[in-house]
């Protein structure tokens, strides 16, 4: 495999509070290759947005990166000065956030914002930058860009604004785009347009994408690989098709089963009892153990490592490589067919689950 565009190694992020140190990210590792879309999925509090912020160095105090490395094309960026990081943000890493209205300055015309960003990062004069801005707007599907470029953000609809934000993120030809819930504020029909656009543009340009979302449907449509996060840790990572259709981790299996879909109109949805632990009360051992139907002695004392399915026997510890990796002790137990067990309770939980 060629060198990944983004490589995150054992990243830990902590927030120091009066009541002690809260660990928001706990040894998170993953890679994103050129032109690849990595989906980062999880429920509120899983740490997916913190991961995005940590990569671009936007963790605000009292938060800090406690350990680990973030490498952009093999070069460490987590220990750069704020000044140097600012040059990387926007130039080499583009960003798209959930609410397009907060990413755009309401007082400036869309064109001015684009031109300013382009000229900050690329050696172009005003006329060239404007020309490039128009090209970009056309590329993200804004009709009549030569006229719309002089509009203000409030004159654009939600979907069109998100297109402008995407153009802003792409204007300096970044190697990596971090998209944090880019479609959450949009209606389904517009969401589909933005997903298709994001996917097409990144494929054409070979841009790596880290797509953070809580919506598994968006991930399934867009991502090549997916990392499922739980309580600040990566529970499972693998090709999106495998994770969606045959999740290994009991949490991932429960999560997939709890999503209502158009295809399966079963009577009951799979239900994971309880909810995500708070950061000040993450269980010892596997963070999922209080909610897991298969918990046994080892789960409450020892934290499972993220290991590829093939790497289990050899015990090597680079679970973030390609392939399908899972952090669950069941897969280490001799004589236990963990996969069959997890697949089965995807169905059983729906049948026996009781709400009240």
């Amino acid at each position, binding site marked *: 495999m060629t060198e990944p565009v983004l490589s995150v190694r054992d990243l830990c992020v902590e927030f120091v509070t009066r009541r002690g140190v809260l660990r928001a990210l706990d040894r998170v590792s993953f890679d994103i290759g050129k032109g690849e879309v990595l989906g980062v999925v999880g429920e*509120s509090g899983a740490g997916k947005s913190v991961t995005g912020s940590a990569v671009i160095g936007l963790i605000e105090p009292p938060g800090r990166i406690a350990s680990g490395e973030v490498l952009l094309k093999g070069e460490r960026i987590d220990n750069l000065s704020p000044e140097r990081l600012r040059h990387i943000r926007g130039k080499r890493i583009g960003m798209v956030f959930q609410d397009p209205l907060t990413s755009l300055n309401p007082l400036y015309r869309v064109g001015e914002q684009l031109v300013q960003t382009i000229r900050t990062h690329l050696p172009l004069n005003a006329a060239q930058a404007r020309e490039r801005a128009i090209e970009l707007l056309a590329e993200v599907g804004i009709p009549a860009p030569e006229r719309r470029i002089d509009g203000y953000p409030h004159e654009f609809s939600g979907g069109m604004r998100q297109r402008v934000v995407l153009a802003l993120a792409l204007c300096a030809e970044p190697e990596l785009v971090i998209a944090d819930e880019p479609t959450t504020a949009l209606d389904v029909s517009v969401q589909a347009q933005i997903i298709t656009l994001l996917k097409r543009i990144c494929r054409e340009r070979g841009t790596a994408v880290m797509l953070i979302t809580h919506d598994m449907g968006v991930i*399934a449509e867009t991502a090549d690989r997916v990392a499922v996060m739980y309580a600040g840790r990566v529970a499972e990572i693998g090709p999106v098709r495998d994770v969606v259709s045959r999740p290994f981790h009991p949490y991932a299996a429960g999560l997939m089963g709890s999503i209502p879909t158009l295809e399966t109109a079963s009577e009951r949805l799979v239900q994971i009892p309880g909810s995500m632990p708070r950061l000040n009360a993450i269980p010892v051992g596997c963070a999922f153990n209080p909610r897991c139907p298969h918990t046994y002695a080892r789960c409450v004392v020892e934290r499972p490592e993220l290991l590829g399915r093939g790497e289990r026997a050899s015990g090597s510890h680079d679970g973030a490589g390609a392939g399908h990796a899972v952090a669950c002790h069941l897969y280490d137990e001799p004589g236990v067919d963990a996969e069959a067990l997890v697949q089965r309770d995807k169905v059983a939980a729906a049948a026996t689950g009781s709400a009240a």
Partner: protein
Amino acid sequence: MSDAAFVQIRDLRRVFDVSKPWLERTLAREGHQLLKAVDGVTVSIRRGETFALVGESGSGKSTVARMVVGLLPPSAGEVVIDGVSMTAAKDAAARKKLRRRIQMIFQDPYASLDPRWRVGRIIAEPIRAFGLAKEQGVEARVGELLRLVGLDPADAAKFPHEFSGGQRQRIAIARALAAEADFIVCDEPTSALDVSVQAQILNLMKDLQERLGLTYLFISHNLAVVRHMAATIGVMYLGRVVEVAPARQLFSHPRHPYTRMLLDAVPDLAMSGRPRTPVQGEIPNPISPPSGCTFNPRCALANDRCRREVPPLKDGTACHAVHEGRADSQDMPEIAAG
């Protein structure tokens, strides 16, 4: 289940005045600007059934919900629940009795519970207000309700901020049940929740419906959730119902071009690789909606008639192309489902 409609919504309309202030309007020589949020909605819901209204933002679905429970007076039309009109003056006495039986669950469980009240007091409020239990029995009833929604009776002493979003939504459900309601209007009850918590709440709502024979009007933008919950579904677009059908039929044989487009736009978790028709455009500004069928600028089947005449809701669909038999062409592939 009786076939008679439990809830009847007849030609319901709501117009909002969104004009600029008088002085500004006069200086700019503009007239009044009116927004037709709901434009002639007719729907009937059977007892014990879940009826869902789906639509994108601005389709008027929440406005319908608010008018049905009486939080917003309709501009025209009427809502009849169990034979009692919610609008006609002559039914005032009967309506007072009916009020108790209609409750609402809101989208944001952080905003719909008073942060200064203990949970016990929140749930007891309807019991006391409607005199449904003697004072010494209230606490026991609250405990019973908390258990019913999967919480602990001891939780009554806590404040809302001590609960997670899903638990708060359970409290909101308990409050609705405290009034011994049989018709519950749910406005996006799970949109603010995570999927695994959403599953818990949806399962709970289904269980309660079965046990207590509740009737739900379920408002949502999420088609997959609606498919899971509802028996009958109405699809709204710009204030009008464009298609009404039993859930199964709507998903296996969507007829209105807008319904087909919506179904097509839902991200496909199963990755069956079904072909997707690219969606065209966005919802137009409701202040100046297109003439005729409001969907015509986005519709591949639109012709002159669609741009001129508003299609009536006939046989469950409001579409000229469907009525004229033009919609069965291949440019609208049906979605395999079920």
